[in-house]
């Protein structure tokens, strides 16, 4: 989740409150305080509030909650007279663009840092790593409108930001870091998007890189913002957040006319949107009995406002989807810590699941016989599940792109996990008796079937088949409905001649035996090991 660094002194001034008050209230606008240092507070914000990407956005919200500045903040937009024409060829490449200007800027280093951080967060969040939305921030002073958002050949050349020589578009994609990171978004396109002014100065090559000519510095007084996107509403949302942030920073926002073949629209549109005010719903959701005035006060603390029967929502709020979102704004304005909890008593009695109860009873019995219960991961590595037992891994169930190979296949047996536990405990005293009750995963055509299994192993200098059988038989008589029959049968875990299939009432339920020498060697265990693994499914009731 994205993080914002708040310089304490600067932030305190922006908010108009001291550090203590700020730290106390930050959680109540939904921010997680990551760390508090003498000169800095780092906060984490949720992706539904991209407007929290700078200290300006957070300060705006906090001032509301603290009662220092209430209601909707109005944003004025004046027409900049700049036109951006859109090449229809781009409709199959990267169709939408929305732009704005910001004048009268007076940035310091921290302002720029905050702005770049916001841009990065927008790219990763709403921008879906630039695939959905990409942003270009430009110093306007050298640009000569109108601008053209057009399709260019891969051989088109310009000087990208960060490079010393002009490069072709295909070169940029193949050779630069951003080209390699984001070039996949333009894969398969033989005409690529370029934003340039009337003199051919390139502003950007979206979503890859900006032109060097329009680089931002602390001297920048006027900016041009371009937001390209795959979906117009999301592009507009991102532009709105950037424009309102720049306005918060003291900029005057200018609208740009974006001209698609024939039709044109002015961006950004910062007029507040409206959602109907449903006071009954608000009461229902929050459990608070509030008068209309109280509701209004709470909304104003959340920097919203009411006009007639509608709630006015500032353009930088992209998270209001449904009237319940208004109910939450009321609760936040009220103060989550001011809400009185009320315990909801139950009318009906509860009950525990029979399948789980059954598994528990069996597990208790095994523990009572002197075994230590282990819990091991369902995702294991192919070596301990297959190779160490000379098994084929053809039927394996794999996960895509696991972060570690230790957790890459779903286990179809518990026994290898138990062997791994024994191999990690060769320094502990013997006898070692361990077990696990868990699920195993098997392919059944196109489906995956999950089955509860029990496996137990005993390890010590005289561990034997008869010992394992003694334990399993005792368990079977109590929980499995009868004595076990053991027929000789080969199994990948057990030594030849010391391996058996286990049956109860003529139905096969699993295997038992003495673990083979090669498996012992593979796991580095120097004492004999014997045990069993059985399928518990037919012994558990899972429906009433």
């Amino acid at each position, binding site marked *: 989740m994205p993080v914002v660094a708040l310089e304490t002194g600067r932030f305190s001034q922006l908010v108009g409150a001291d550090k203590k008050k700020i730290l106390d209230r930050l*959680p109540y606008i939904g921010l997680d305080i990551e760390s508090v240092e003498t000169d800095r507070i780092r906060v984490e914000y*949720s992706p*539904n509030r991209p407007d929290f990407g700078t200290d300006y956005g957070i300060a705006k919200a906090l001032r509301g909650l603290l009662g220092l500045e209430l209601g909707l903040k109005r944003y004025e937009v004046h027409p900049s007279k700049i036109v951006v024409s859109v090449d229809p060829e781009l409709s199959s490449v990267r169709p939408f663009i929305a732009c704005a200007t910001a004048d009268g800027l007076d940035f310091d280093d921290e302002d720029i840092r905050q702005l770049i951080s916001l841009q990065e967060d927008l790219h990763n969040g709403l921008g*879906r790593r630039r695939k*959905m939305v990409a942003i270009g921030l430009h110093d306007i002073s050298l640009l000569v409108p109108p601008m053209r958002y057009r399709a260019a050949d891969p051989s088109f050349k310009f000087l990208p930001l960060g490079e010393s020589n002009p490069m072709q578009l295909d070169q940029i994609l193949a050779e630069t870091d951003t080209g390699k990171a984001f070039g996949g978004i333009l894969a398969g396109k033989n005409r690529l998007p370029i934003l340039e002014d009337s003199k051919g100065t390139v502003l950007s090559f979206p979503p890859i890189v900006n032109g060097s000519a329009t680089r931002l510095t602390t001297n920048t007084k006027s900016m041009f913002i371009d937001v390209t996107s795959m979906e117009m*509403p999301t592009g507009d949302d991102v532009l709105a957040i950037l424009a309102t942030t720049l306005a918060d920073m003291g900029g005057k926002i200018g609208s740009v006319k974006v001209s698609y073949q024939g039709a044109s629209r002015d961006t950004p549109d910062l007029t507040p949107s409206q959602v109907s005010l449903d006071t009954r719903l608000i009461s*229902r*959701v*929050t*459990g608070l009995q509030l008068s209309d005035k109280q509701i209004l006060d709470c909304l104003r603390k959340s920097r919203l406002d009411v006009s007639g029967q509608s709630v006015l929502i500032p353009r930088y709020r992209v998270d209001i*989807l*449904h*009237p319940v979102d208004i109910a*939450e704004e009321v609760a*936040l304005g009220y103060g989550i*810590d001011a*809400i009185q*909890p*009320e*315990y*909801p008593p*139950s009318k*009906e*009695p*509860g*009950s*525990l*699941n029979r399948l*789980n109860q059954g598994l*528990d009873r069996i*597990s*208790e019995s*095994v*523990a*009572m016989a*002197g*075994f*230590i*219960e*282990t*819990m*091991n*991961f*369902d995702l294991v590595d192919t070596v301990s599940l297959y190779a160490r037992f000379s098994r084929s891994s053809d039927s394996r*169930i794999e*996960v*895509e*792109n*696991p*972060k570690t190979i230790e*957790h890459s296949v*779903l286990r179809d047996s518990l026994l290898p996990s138990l062997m791994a536990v024994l191999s990690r405990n060769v320094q*502990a005293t013997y006898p070692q*008796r*361990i077990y696990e009750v868990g699920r195993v*995963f098997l392919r059944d055509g*196109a*489906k*995956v079937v*999950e089955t509860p299994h029990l496996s137990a192993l005993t390890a010590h200098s005289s561990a034997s088949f008869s010992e394992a059988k003694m334990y399993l038989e005792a368990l079977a008589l109590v929980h499995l409905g009868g004595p076990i029959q053991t027929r000789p049968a080969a199994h990948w875990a057990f030594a030849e001649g010391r391996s058996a299939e286990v049956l109860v009432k003529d139905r096969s339920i699993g295997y038992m035996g003495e673990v083979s020498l090669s498996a012992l060697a593979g796991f580095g265990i120097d004492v004999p090991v014997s045990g069993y693994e059985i399928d518990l499914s037919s012994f558990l009731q899972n429906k009433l």
Partner: protein
Amino acid sequence: MSEPAKTPLHPLEQRVLAALKDKQWVDFDSLVKSSGLLPDQVRRAVSWLASKGLITSREKTTRTLTVQQDPAELLLIRGIGKTGSPMEKLRQTFKSNQEFAAALGNARSSGWIAVEQKDGEPIVTLKDKDKAMQNEAFIESLRGKETEEGKIPAEYRSYAEKLVTRNVLKRNESKSVTLRITDEGVKAAGEATSEDWIERLTPEVIARTRLTGMSPKLRPIDVSAPASGFYPGRRHPVREFIKEVREVYLSMGFVELEGDNVQPSFWNFDALFIPQDHPGREMQDTFYLSGLVDRTINRSGVVDRVASTHENGWTTGSRGWRYQWRTEEARRLLLRTHNTVLTIKALSESKNKEARVFAVSKVYRNESLDYKHLAEFHQMDGIIVGDGLNVRHLMGFLTEFYKKLGMKDVKLWPTFFPYTEPSLQIMGYSEIAKDWIELGGSGVFRPEVTLPMGVDVPVLAWGPGIERLMLLRYGLDDIRALYDGDLAWLRKRVEFASSST
């Protein structure tokens, strides 16, 4: 009350008395050796015996001598030839004139040498070589060890004293305790040996006793000796904690669910109003099963209602996520990332307007493991469905639930989930970290979630993790320790007594 019977001597006491039977003063270390017992055992026996007056102790000061350096006069002697040596030549073998003069003087006064004039030069000759050699031998016998002063032969005592003054020999003093048997102790030792102990009861001894009517005495054993280790079978601590959680839920009127760990993406994500391009749905964070899909997911019924809600809000009154919903994405099989999938399914199948259900089971996230993160862990999800429920009830429930699990103090802070509004994160206080720690999330399900399921009453939901809470309880700082399979910990961990009322 009559006088209590005299308790027989403990076998350790008997051994120590036997080792002291010579009625000599014996020091502690020698006693350990001669009794064949461990130092600890000897210490115990000595303290019992002393309190009974059967042995007595005294502090002894032992003086020993060690050789610091060679006496100069011996060096002188060694340098004298058979027929004598010129004094000048001898003088040169010494570092200083003073040393030479002292050596000469000492050798002379001991009567070992004589100085004569020969041809006008002083010559030193050996007068009593044997005596000198004897002294040399004496010093050799002391070299490289500590010798008790008492063991020095009488004829060398005064010589030794002189050597101490001259720093040739060094005197060391050490105090030690020595022990000696008393007359009562001698008597007690004698009595004890005449007793007839048997080592242990056996079926034969018991049978014989019945026949003969004689009851032999059992030799007393050292009851304070440590027992051999034994590790009883045990449940895994996470299972024990899960049991506790299930019981808390039961006590609050909840019905337990269980279900498959493998789910189609539809129930894990789409049904929870998580858009199909949400970053959390990516392979980076989720375990998708290679090449496996659920073909029963088709755009009809509940699937269609959910899809429409994503696209445009359907009839929920929402704006929706405004994108094109795809069936193939919803069909992908994955390992569930939370348990809400079970509660949501139950919601869709239930015809009841009121319900309380929970599930405590495994969830999976495609993460690298570190001290705070696991790829497989457990959540204790629950929902309460009912008319009139609101966020205050959610807060009330969570406060009570955590109180029953031993966390007296929980804080609820606003947060965000795509499927709940309002959303609250549950914070618990860690005594070890001295800080508030996130225990899990909760909220009121959005209408975009409940309405497509056919539920038009509020649903409160929460899905905190189990392992985080266990770390706080057990004072562990590494979450992986819970699943390491460390037998030492699994065998020896101390039972935790919940501090909740």
